């Protein structure tokens, strides 16, 4: 900044140019500070999310175990389908929201072409934003205030209760979420949910003892909350790790820009000084 002050004092005709230049440099430096701090915040949230994910996975795998072991499948003629897209309210996390929205849009197209009725539930304001314009008529419910605090089982219960009270009697459905694989990778995954009638009507259920309609209904309701809880936990962990990566890349890009700008700045400054010197020397030689 010593050089910056010399520059500003000596070279007046280019003052507008250099002021723009200095402002640009300052703004990029500020942005870099912001992205760096966002990365730190995300890193802390990620550490907590990953810690809470480990016990949460048990709920999801436990709830889905019955569907897998009993090989429950919805009969082909069932018409009503439900898609739940799990994401969050906040951006700056790479492709987290767009990958969920893309999968949702593809599924909507496939199911509609197969003649099924589809409704979509968006967990997180970003899903609503991405789907509203083109697929707004498929949106059944949206949930916001997702992502501000780590998700709890209470959140999953609220979502499950609203779904059950929504009046949309779906036959089967899927939860689409981002499954956490590692700090640098996540994958968009899909887990099935079935209606009470589908499960009760499945032949393989007769091998289980002591299941009556009431027990099954309780289990179905609780399973829905469990699957949602599991997908919320996986989703937040993926989101925080993606935001960490995105902010890290942004900081790196900003440093690159700062270096390039500083180089051209110094080169320009030196060129102007050289030109002045030459003018002075050639002027002296003319005397």
């Amino acid at each position, binding site marked *: 900044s010593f050089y910056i002050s010399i520059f500003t004092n000596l070279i007046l005709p280019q003052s507008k140019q250099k002021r723009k230049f200095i402002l640009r440099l300052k703004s990029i430096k500020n942005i870099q500070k912001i992205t760096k701090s966002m990365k730190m915040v995300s890193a802390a949230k990620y550490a907590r999310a990953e810690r809470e994910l480990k016990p949460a996975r048990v709920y999801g795998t436990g709830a889905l175990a019955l569907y897998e072991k009993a090989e429950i499948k919805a009969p082909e003629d069932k018409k009503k389908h439900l898609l739940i897209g799990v994401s969050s309210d906040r951006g700056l996390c790479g492709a987290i929201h767009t990958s969920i929205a893309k999968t949702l849009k593809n599924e909507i197209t496939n199911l509609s072409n197969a003649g099924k009725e589809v409704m979509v539930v968006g967990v997180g304001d970003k899903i609503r934003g991405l789907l509203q314009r083109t697929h707004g008529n498929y949106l059944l419910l949206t*949930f916001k205030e997702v992502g501000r605090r780590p998700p709890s089982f209470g959140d999953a219960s609220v979502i499950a209760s609203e779904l*059950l009270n929504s009046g949309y009697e779906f036959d089967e459905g899927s939860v689409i979420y981002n499954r956490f694989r590692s700090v640098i990778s996540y994958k968009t995954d899909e887990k099935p949910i079935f209606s009470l009638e589908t499960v009760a009507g499945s032949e393989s259920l007769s091998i289980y003892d002591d299941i009556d309609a009431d027990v099954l*209904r*309780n289990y179905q*309701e609780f399973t829905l909350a469990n699957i949602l809880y599991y997908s919320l936990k996986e989703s937040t962990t993926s989101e925080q790790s993606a935001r960490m990566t995105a902010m890290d890349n942004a900081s790196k890009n900003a440093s690159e820009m700062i270096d390039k700008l500083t180089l051209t700045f110094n080169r320009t400054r030196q060129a102007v000084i050289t030109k002045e010197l030459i003018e002075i020397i050639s002027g002296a030689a003319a005397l």
Partner: protein
Amino acid sequence: SPSSLGPAAMVAYWRQAGLSYIRYSQICAQVVRAAMKPQYKAEAERAAMATVKTLKPKKE
């Protein structure tokens, strides 16, 4: 509906009262939390807080 099942069906009292299993387990968990010792109670209540808000799309 559960009340239309035969006399041998065991429909839980809370189901008959109109509660879903999710609501029933929520109330049970609340009771457990209320019975906890103070040093564990605050932490448990914080962990159980639900912050999600529902948004029903406007019907045109």
